[in-house]
């Protein structure tokens, strides 16, 4: 198992905020919109440096999505910011009609995704957002794993023409991807080559997959670990190539098991080369209040859950 170390932990939302500030300096067409969550989204530095390109929308997410769609007419690249729940479920029809169907170059940037939002509870812990967004034709869906990758993704999506959903989170997590690693939309990142099982992880579960890889190595299991930061378009080639070698799959995500990364992988495999698969995901339920660590434990999203899933899936191999 390849060694991964870190010296610092940071929240992925700070990667977004720092990336947006850098973009503001590089690209005069980048504009920011926020629905009364500037601090939570780390958009304050951009607002301070580019007040004329920043729009406080108030608690009115539907209007924010429509404004952003309109701002693209004339060449602006709007980045909207609010919690993942209010970025998707609350404004699904606005995104569907004014952004996706209209083919607008809007970047929907969503923090506090998943259970790790913590104590605020299920009203705010959206676990269905990846599913909703990936079902929209033309929408790119990205869920980076750490501060560096979130910053790189923020820079990369400004260069991509078309609507993007960028999902990140609240808690501090280890920074283990290189600061200078270029973010390629739709390109999976190989973290560890292995032969017994393919672990495809996204977002906060990528670090858990690395921890699981070490535990599995101790048990003599060689895990291939791949970071799927882009759920749509899925790097099908990387998925098929890995599973052709290992013969079984574990998918890991901080999302409902229905409609997330695991289902995208299952569909890619089922239509070409079926293989046993186990899901590490939330089992079609709502979350609740608690610390991020307690919630990840209770809802089965730890490195130990990944290890158990690997053992189950290997036993199902013919």
């Amino acid at each position, binding site marked *: 198992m390849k060694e991964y170390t870190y010296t610092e932990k940071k929240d992925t939302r700070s990667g977004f905020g720092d990336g947006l500030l850098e973009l503001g300096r590089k690209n005069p067409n980048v504009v920011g919109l926020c629905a009364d969550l500037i601090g939570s989204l780390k958009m304050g530095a951009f607002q301070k440096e580019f007040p004329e390109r920043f729009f406080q929308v*108030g608690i009115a997410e539907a209007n924010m*999505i429509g404004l952003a769609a*309109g701002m693209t*007419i004339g060449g602006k690249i709007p980045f909207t910011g609010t919690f993942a729940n209010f970025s998707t479920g609350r404004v699904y029809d*606005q995104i569907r*009609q004014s952004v996706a169907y209209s*083919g607008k170059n809007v970047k929907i940037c969503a923090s506090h995704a998943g259970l790790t939002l913590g104590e605020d509870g299920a009203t705010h812990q959206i676990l269905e957002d990846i599913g909703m967004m990936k079902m929209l034709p033309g929408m790119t869906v990205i869920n980076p794993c750490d501060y560096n990758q979130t910053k790189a993704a923020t820079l990369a999506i400004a260069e991509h023409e078309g609507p993007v959903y960028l999902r990140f989170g609240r808690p501090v997590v280890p920074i283990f991807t290189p600061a200078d690693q270029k973010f390629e939309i739709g390109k999976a990142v190989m973290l560890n080559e292995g032969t017994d099982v393919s672990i495809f992880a996204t977002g906060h579960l990528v670090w858990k997959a690395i921890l699981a890889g070490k535990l599995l190595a101790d048990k003599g299991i060689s895990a291939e670990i791949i970071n799927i930061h882009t759920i749509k378009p899925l790097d099908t080639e990387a998925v098929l190539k890995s599973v052709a070698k290992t013969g079984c799959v574990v998918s890991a995500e901080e999302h409902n098991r229905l409609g997330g990364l695991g289902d995208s992988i299952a569909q890619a495999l089922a239509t070409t080369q079926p293989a046993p698969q186990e899901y590490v995901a939330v089992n079609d339920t709502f979350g609740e209040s608690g610390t991020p660590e307690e919630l990840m434990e209770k809802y089965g999203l730890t490195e130990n859950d990944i290890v158990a899933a690997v053992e189950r899936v290997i036993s199902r191999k013919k």
Partner: protein
Amino acid sequence: MNPHNLSIEELKQTAAQVRRDIVRMVHAVNSGHPGGSLGCTDYFVSLYFRMMNYSTDFTMDGQGEDLFFLSNGHISPVWYSTLARAGFFDIKELATFRKLNSRLQGHPTTHEGLPGVRISSGSLGQGLSAALGAAQTKKLNKDKSLVYVLMGDGELEEGQIWEAAMYAAHHKVDNIIATVDRNGQQIDGSTEEVMSLGDLAAKFRAFGWHVLEADGNNFELLLPALEHAKAATGNGKPVIILMDTEMGYGVDFMMGSHKWHGVAPNDEQLEIALQQLAVESASDY
């Protein structure tokens, strides 16, 4: 500069031709929304043949041009006919309305690349937000031209409209002229039966808008109101016209009722309608 700049007499003839297109289009596919389309015809013709500064060489960004957004997308027939008659595409294409593989979808969309359309609409309540965004981009681009947006009155029941209304005044978006088609009708009945809209002028004033009222079916009154609205822009407040129209205007049996909101005329009704919409030299598509 408006590419047509018609006289009032010419506007009346153009409006009659557009109304002929509307009833023929919805009749041909036995679907679509003639009532609101007929009511708003004089408004569309005023914008595209007199008021707005634009080029028929359509670009999505429309730099230096006045832009128009239709929020109540179901009145697409009047918009499509106006765009074709104004020169955005061949009038023959009106015959494809609502048919398979057409650019003239039931509700307007950018998806098939129809010139003149800058955003999809149909699901109500979204157009004002998009128009405000486009207006703010114009300001960032130091583009002095204006943004027009039309909404239905029933559509004002959508909450997003009021989010946008609040935003427009707060951010002093004063390069927009919104218009409400105040025909008093929606699918299930009159607006006052379904969901009373009350004193719209007072509501928009309370939200910080400059409010004007207009008769939408009389060029002699509508054109001065549109000029007045234009003069009111640039003064720190968004501008809105509450425009009284008669649903189905120009076809007597379609007027004064919500029943023709989304119903097409049969063959006999079409003939009667076309007789009422006589034009000196009709050039039907």
